[in-house]
């Protein structure tokens, strides 16, 4: 429970960082070190700082973050697997002046939801789409995802992903960036304090663009899955930097003129 000041050894210290009020008190079920918790925090912090919590509706996916609606203290809907962007479309079309975001993992967005994902961006739906890419299906026990890397060992690729048999890791974000409906597309991470700060800037810009009704803002976060990758959180982040980042480079992919 944060207080505004803390007195320690006679010194009065002021609080400079605390959990945002837009996150509920429910302890998160995510594995230790999982990026979901960080992204939830950054997203909710942004919403709190922009003062839009009362006018925001979010859509949670199926996957580890199926429980996102338990942690985000805004009106939320739980969508069927893959359909978060369709549900978000329904909400956006009915509530044209509110803030709408969808939050999905790699299976939800790039496997079962591929059609909805592409068409939502193609329509230029005025929403923020958050895409958490950790190259694996965590919730169901660590199976291959469309974004799993070549050679990556998962529970359904025990000998490593053989691209000649089952295809290549899907760079869905680059595909979507080509659509005219995609207004702002970027790829971030949350493994260092600086990365976290940059993601927050990206979310801030996205909500601003949403206010200006510019179209779809698509933010991918390359993240870890310590449990699925069978590593400690620190090892996972190291592995992610070494292996995921070269294939999924961090940075802006499609940037509107006013951001350049």
């Amino acid at each position, binding site marked *: 429970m*944060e207080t505004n*000041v*803390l007195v*320690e*050894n006679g*010194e*009065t*210290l*002021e*609080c*400079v*960082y*605390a*959990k*945002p009020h837009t*996150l509920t008190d429910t*302890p*998160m079920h*995510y*594995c*230790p*070190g*999982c*990026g*979901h*918790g*960080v992204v939830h*925090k950054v997203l909710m912090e942004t919403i709190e700082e922009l003062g839009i919590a009362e006018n925001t509706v979010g859509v949670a996916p199926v996957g580890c973050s199926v429980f996102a609606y338990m942690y985000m203290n805004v009106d939320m809907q739980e969508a069927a697997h893959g359909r978060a962007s369709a549900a978000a479309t329904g909400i956006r079309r009915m509530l044209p002046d509110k803030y709408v975001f969808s939050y999905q993992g790699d299976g939800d967005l790039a496997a079962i939801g591929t059609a909805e994902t592409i068409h939502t961006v193609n329509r230029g739906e005025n929403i923020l789409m958050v895409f958490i890419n950790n190259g694996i299906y965590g919730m169901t026990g660590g199976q291959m995802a469309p974004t799993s890397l070549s050679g990556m060992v998962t529970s359904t690729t025990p000998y490593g992903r053989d691209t000649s048999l089952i295809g290549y890791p899907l760079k869905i974000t680059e595909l979507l960036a080509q659509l005219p409906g995609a207004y702002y597309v970027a790829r971030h991470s*949350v*493994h*260092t*304090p600086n990365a*976290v*700060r940059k993601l927050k800037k990206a979310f801030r810009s996205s909500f601003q663009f949403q206010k200006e009704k510019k179209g779809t803002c698509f933010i991918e976060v390359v993240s870890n899955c*310590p449990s699925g990758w069978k590593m*400690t*959180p*620190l090892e996972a*982040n190291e592995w992610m930097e070494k292996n995921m980042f070269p294939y999924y480079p961090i940075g802006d992919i499609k940037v509107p003129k006013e951001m350049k």
Partner: protein
Amino acid sequence: MITGTVVVATEICKGCELCIASCPQESLALSTSINRKGYRYAQLVQHNCTGCMNCALVCPDSAITVYRQPKAAKHAAAAVLNAQTA
């Protein structure tokens, strides 16, 4: 003279160590005792925290609250120091 400190919600902390790795002062380490969930939790082991917020930024469970000396007090303290060394 403390410039900053952190308060860790020890029952929320999952001992992921991301904060420990992010601290430029190496002020944090895992406890030897465990919380109710069986995790060793992060705690301050040095008194050199600057309140830089790095740890809180990377914490997936928002378990860290950061406190820092207010700017005015900092300037006053610096002035005292300058006076002493002058």
